[in-house]
């Protein structure tokens, strides 16, 4: 059987099976017919999705299916890749984020990102968290800044572990602590949306459990979009799940629905472990 990507462009269908929530939440981020190209290669085919506010949306799918690519469109990190091109429309609170009027710096202040591998700067824990507020001028005084740093660390449930060594290097923390430091760093600029690109793939199970717990707490205040390879993780932390395959958004719906009663055969195959 030919896969979608191998079929000629005209004959492909990009229909997505959608199952709405029982009690729909307001839409925070919306993608409309998004195509992404890396040079001549097309990585995403007409992705259309609504991402609800103050909930966790998980992107799942096999490697190379385009889930990270789509995530990186949402804060325009694809701009930093030479040869990447995005078509279609992505809105944040109904505002086109690829609009030339919109400054990418403002966008990224509203859409934070946590990466696959913890990437604290080689600075102190305090300076890591203070980095964002400083460049955006969020703190008027030194005490302001300290308050922001402390509250961000508290929200990332890291404060109690590091309060005595705020001025030691962030790179000296354990992997799980580093990842929570990166989350605190993202929270410090008070974003609306936090993107997480496989945030636990470099962590051990205990650190993973802590980060998942944190994600669950954060969803009361932030819209969270998480890319994950672990279906258990998607099932544990997310309210909605979107399944990508070969650059196409195949199915999206409430997480329990996707995992218990998938409609598309490809979704079913992936979830039951038949490929990917």
């Amino acid at each position, binding site marked *: 059987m030919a896969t979608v990507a191998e079929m000629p462009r005209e004959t492909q269908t990009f229909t997505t099976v959608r199952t709405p929530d029982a009690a729909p939440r307001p839409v925070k981020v919306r993608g409309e017919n998004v195509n992404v190209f890396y040079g001549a290669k097309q990585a995403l085919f007409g992705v259309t999705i609504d991402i609800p506010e103050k909930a966790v949306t998980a992107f799942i799918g096999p490697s190379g299916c385009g889930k990270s690519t789509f995530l990186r469109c949402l*804060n325009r*990190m694809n701009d*930093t890749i*030479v040869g990447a091109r995005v078509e279609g429309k992505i809105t944040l609170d109904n505002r086109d984020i690829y609009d030339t009027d919109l400054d990418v*710096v*403002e*966008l*990224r*202040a509203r859409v*934070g*990102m946590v*990466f696959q*591998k913890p*990437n*604290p*700067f*080689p*600075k102190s824990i305090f300076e890591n968290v203070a*980095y*964002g507020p400083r*460049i*955006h001028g969020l703190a008027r005084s030194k005490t302001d800044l300290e308050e922001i740093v402390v509250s961000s660390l508290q929200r990332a449930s890291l404060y109690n572990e590091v309060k005595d060594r705020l001025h030691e290097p962030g*790179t000296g923390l354990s992997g799980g602590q580093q990842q929570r430091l*990166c989350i605190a*760093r*993202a929270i410090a*600029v008070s974003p609306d949306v936090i993107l997480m690109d496989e945030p636990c793939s470099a962590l051990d199970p205990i650190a993973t459990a802590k980060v998942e717990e944190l994600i669950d707490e954060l969803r009361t205040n932030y819209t969270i979009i998480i890319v994950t390879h672990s279906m258990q993780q998607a099932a544990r932390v997310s309210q909605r799940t979107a399944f990508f395959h070969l650059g196409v958004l195949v199915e999206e719906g409430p997480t329990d629905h996707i995992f218990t009663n998938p409609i598309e055969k490809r979704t079913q195959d992936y979830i039951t472990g038949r490929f990917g």
Partner: protein
Amino acid sequence: MIGYAFLLILAFSAVAYFVGRSTGSRFVATAGGKVHSLPGYHGAFVALWVGLPALLLLLLWVSFQGSAIDRMLLASLPETLTAGKSASEIDLIVSEIKNVAAGRMFSQPSADIVTVAERLQGWHAIADWAMIVVAACLMIVGLVLSRRLLSPRFRARNVVERIISGLMIGCSVIAILTTLGIIVSLIYEAAAFFRMVPFTEFLFGLRWEPQIALRPDQVAGQGAFGAIPVFVGTLLISFIALLVSVPIGLFTAIYLVEFADERVRAVVKPVLEILAGIPTVVFGFFAILVVAPAVRDFSNVLGLAASPNSALAAGLVMGIMIIPFVSSLSDDAMKAVPRSMRDGSLALGATPAETMTKVILPAALPGIVGGILLAASRAIGETMIVAMAAGLIASLTINPLDSVTTVTVQIVTLLTGDTEFDSPKTLAAFALGLVLFLVTLTLNIIALQIVRRYREQYD
């Protein structure tokens, strides 16, 4: 003759390799999977046993043949030639005999010398042939013995690998020994200098007038060996060079790493590499013909007096020379900062400029400092530009428009022309060289230390 000997060893080793390999193949054919090493290793084992001892013998033979024959020659000189001659006169006779034996005749030699020369020729021929015969015997013995060692369970691979790693150790030891040899010869001559001129006078003296008389009839200065003016001149020129190269090189690197697009990079990088490949003597031309007159004219316009060979001109050109050093080492240091740092900063809404100044530069700073120190030691040791464009007179000044001299220039002038190795004038060059070596060595060690500490940060 030695060329033929090498060819012979090469040919023998090749034959030995095939002999060993065919033995190995036979083991595989008869013993099947129980053979320890691949046939190629059996071949290499035999070849190494044949080639290496013969090669060693050849090297030893060549290094001792000359002195052995010389000694035989001296012992066999007829009384008529040596009677009542001093050692240096005998040396002259020996070299005449050698010349005659080699066919270089400047005058009609005496009969005695001709007979000795013929004898010498005979010895040379015998020695050459003996060398080849002994080497061939050694190789045959090696072939027979090493072939006898081969068996299916023989660990040829392990032995070959050990020999090869021994060879590699030998190569690195040669490099280290050469360095040690250079240091020892420097220290030896410098010690001779410090027996004539007190250490403290050299290190702290303020006057440098080394052109003293070598012969009683020469008219020359009294001599003074205070190295301070020379080192101040070196530091002045190096400082000017760094003042030029560090900002230019650093900003070039920042531009290339963060802001330039592919097409600009494709042009700028190769051009910088061309700059690094220009011979320093060409930079010297540039300094004398273009920069020095420009500096003089410009300072005349400003109403300042500049000497024709100003420190500024030499420093400027040297700065241009080390720009590629600074830029390519800082470029490497900034590229070594993981992409995830950059992404993390950009994802927080930092602009590329903020990312550069707040994340990449601090993270790369140790590497950049290391690069600058390496460039500095290069500038201090640079000779050709300053020999052409800086002055010769050691004046103690920090005015960049004055003429100053540098350590390397002084070494060059002390060791050209009349030299005599028991005069402080000549030996002073070695003392200068020693101190210069210590300074650049220290700078290099500091630079490497800084670079190493920087590496640990991300691993």
